[in-house]
């Protein structure tokens, strides 16, 4: 019995630990690792497909309105033209048919607001307008959810097994594509109609890096606003922020012209520094605080704000789920 037991035990033990446990451990861990990585890859692929599906759905929806789809370049042209013509109205040089915005830069320079900067003021306006197309795009995340709510499809979309990440990223990616189309059109119009040259400035890698960080910051804002919309069932915050941000962040002007109280609020908004830094990089326009400080503020905000925005959206969406108001509008 003892022997048998020992033998069995030993055998079993040996078998289990050696022949069984050992190979199993190896097989299982390998298989598990393989399975886990396979599952992770499949999950990632599924998420990416959802992102693609959201983008495709939004694109098809836009395309189904031919008037809007085929006339889209009017919007970026008009946005740029309004600011360029407005600048021309303050030009000290009687300009001919072409816009002489560089003369406006001279006006500002001679007035003392700018000393030796803004050598090409048109770049200043163009880069501001281009970045603003992306900002508007990302802020409209809230509007896209409002649209789903208004059409009665928000609840259906938000309670599917698809992750929030995929849904929001799909919407953000769609907005990014649309904004890029607008940006390309704006730059083309700027070059062709308004004679802008050297759009990205001499240090274009730096400019592009600042641009990317700005987009991350705005994505964070967009997520918070989307969350607010889900709970409050109103795009009020999106509309209000959409109106406030151009003022407080200085969409196409330096916040140095704001009254002291507003300037303090403005400097507390990371995007103000992002815009300021971008314009400094493109046209050498003086920043409101030292560029290195603005770079730190922008860098930290670009990491913190998207994560914060996602967390806020998750919490607010959960509140709406618990209240059972996802389908209401």
């Amino acid at each position: 019995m003892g022997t048998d037991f020992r033998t069995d035990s030993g055998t079993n033990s040996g078998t289990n630990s050696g022949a069984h446990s050992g190979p199993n451990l190896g097989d299982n861990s390998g298989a598990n690792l393989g399975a886990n990585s396979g599952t992770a890859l499949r999950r990632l692929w599924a998420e990416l497909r959802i992102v693609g599906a959201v983008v495709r759905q939004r694109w098809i929806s836009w395309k189904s309105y031919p008037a809007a789809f085929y006339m889209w370049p009017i919007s970026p042209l008009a946005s740029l033209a309004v600011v360029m013509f407005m600048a021309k109205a303050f030009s000290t040089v009687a300009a001919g048919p072409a816009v002489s915005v560089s003369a406006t830069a001279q006006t500002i320079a001679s007035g003392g607001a700018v000393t030796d900067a803004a050598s090409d003021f048109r770049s200043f306006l163009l880069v501001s307008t281009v970045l603003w197309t992306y900002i508007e795009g990302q802020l409209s995340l809230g509007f896209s959810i409002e649209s789903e709510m208004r059409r009665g499809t928000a609840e259906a979309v938000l309670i599917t097994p698809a992750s929030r990440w995929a849904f929001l990223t799909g919407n953000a990616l769609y907005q990014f594509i649309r904004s890029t189309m607008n940006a390309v059109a704006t730059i083309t119009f700027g070059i062709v109609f308004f004679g802008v040259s050297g759009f990205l400035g001499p240090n274009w890698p730096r400019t592009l890096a600042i641009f990317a960080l700005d987009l991350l910051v705005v994505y964070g804002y967009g997520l918070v606003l989307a969350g607010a919309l889900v709970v409050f069932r109103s795009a009020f915050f999106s509309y209000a922020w959409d109106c406030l941000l151009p003022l407080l962040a200085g969409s196409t002007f330096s916040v140095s012209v704001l009254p002291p109280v507003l300037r303090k609020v403005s400097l507390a908004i990371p995007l103000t520094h992002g815009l300021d830094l971008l314009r400094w990089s493109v046209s050498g326009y003086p920043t409101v605080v030292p560029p290195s400080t603005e770079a730190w503020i922008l860098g930290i905000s670009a990491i913190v704000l998207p994560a914060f925005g996602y967390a806020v959206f998750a919490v607010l969406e959960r509140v709406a789920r618990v209240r059972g108001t996802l389908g209401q509008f």
Partner: protein
Amino acid sequence: MGKHGGLFLAAHLRMALALARKKLLQEAAYGLQFAHWFVTPFLGILPYIYQARFFSGPGTQGAEAFSRWAGTTEYIAFIAIGACLWDWVTNLLWEVGFSFRDEQEEGSFEQLWLTPAPRWLLALGNAAANSLINLTMALSVLLLVHLFFGLPLSVNWPLLVTVAALSWISMYGLGFVYAGLVMFLRDATHLVDLVNRAVMILAGVTFPLSVLPVWLRGMARVTPLSWVLTSLRSVMISGSTWGDLKLELTVLSVMAVGFPLFGYFVFRIFETLTRKRGALSGY
């Protein structure tokens, strides 16, 4: 006959009031959205004002340069009033169109359209509430701009009311064209944005029309909104008199008679086309 006529009119009035009441109740149900109508237009004007300050610079050179184009150094008044009136006019223009779009999105458009109520009444009744909101909004924004920026208003009030009334009728008439387009093309938001932005250039909302290239200036002259804005601005900033605005008043009067007729005619064409497509309830 007289009695029937009176009943007919009373029924129409009741319909219009019911529609207006429904719209106001709907707006009031979304408290924050309701607040948005009064707060955001003022916020929307501020970036233009500070943009102008930035372009002008701290000295007087910028303002003097501006006066060469606009005829006034009061560029803040010029831009603030322009932007405020622009909001008012574009809202007027889109009120009719948007009212149908909302019904389409909420799925009640076809039912509403198949009632025995006349089409024009449906359009006007729905828009009456919007007009009330719009007027309150415009006045509150003007008041805020006046309080914060001390606009030098020298207004001939009877002339202002006349110009505003003629503008209101013209833009409402033109609104029927947009309403028809919205019904036919289904989506208004993108179209609103595109047309608004394009017309913003031609109407000279934030800059004097004289800065436009010659060929664009020609187009601006035939844009109804530029006449409306120029006239209202003249009355409110320059203190223009009846005699100063003879041409503008004539043009606005012609528009006030012609646009409603033209608008309704075009609207009926779009309505027929939409019906034939069986797309009244689609959006």
